[in-house]
């Protein structure tokens, strides 16, 4: 399944990723990372389209994008 993968130790919870997500599936979590920031996470049931907008706008390079190949490709 396509999904963003967060490097939580780099995330600073600025939530720019959530502002550009077309599926609106990114939200702030209740977990703190070692730097003391609340980190972003995937929440919501819509599928990730692997558009990578969140990774493009993330100032901390905290997001990697995994895309699932379609059947027959």
């Amino acid at each position: 399944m396509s999904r963003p993968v967060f490097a939580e130790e780099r995330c600073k919870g600025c939530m720019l990723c959530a502002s550009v997500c077309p599926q609106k599936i990114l939200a702030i979590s209740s977990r703190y990372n070692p730097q003391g920031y609340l980190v972003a996470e995937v929440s919501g049931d819509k599928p990730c389209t692997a558009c990578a907008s969140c990774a493009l706008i993330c100032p901390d390079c905290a997001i990697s994008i995994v895309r699932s190949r379609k059947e027959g490709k």
Partner: protein
Amino acid sequence: MNATPSLPGLVEGEELIFSPPRSLTPVPTHYCPGCHHGVAHRLVAELLDEMGLQEKTALISSIGCSVFSYNYFEVDALEAPHGRAPAVATGLKRARPDCFVFTYQGDGDLASIGLAEIMHAANRGDKISIVFVNNTVYGMTGGQMAPTTLLGQKTTTTPMGRISEDCGYPMRMAEIISGLDGTVYSARGALNDAKNIRQAKKMIRRAFEAQSTNSGLGFVELLAGCPTNWHMDALSSNKRIGTELIPVFPLGVFKDNGFAESGKGGGK
């Protein structure tokens, strides 16, 4: 040459389509949440990867929030005194013409303290590349007015807002540098949304190509947000770039001498 990037937990039928560039050190940065230095770092590192320059690159880092950029790029680096990065880069490039030399400077460093150095480096046409991050304020020292501060913008040294009678006007560096004959490329991009980030990456590529094709000085200005010293959150600071900065600092390419494109991995 490049190993295929991988990620733990990747299963059959899945591929990694976006991951941190190899030229970026995998450590958390000291920048504030929403600061665009991180985006600028990533774009530069991606281009060093794509153009195959990492092994021969020397970064000249500056003074300001970007002072620790040598911790974040996996390249050799020199730390220059305040504003003197273009002078240090000139020396290094002339001594080692095989190196790819770029400076990474903020607006306090380049447009104020180091104005003489950048002007003369551009006028001499030294074959170096300049990445200039303009967030209209001195970040590290606590939010003082910079030459690029907008009229009316409140900073710690202009608590009532910048007024032209006392402090002059915001300085448009990309246009100024484009007016010098030694410059072969000068452009201004912004880092506030996905479209502008993609466009900014193309501009940085051209500024790097100016050097890799031995043409002259390549200069790129990037409009960036400083949520801490603008006293707003990351989202509002991105909006401010679109509504307040871009009307004063228009985006675009101000000079391109039409030198050849180069670099491995091409793909615009």
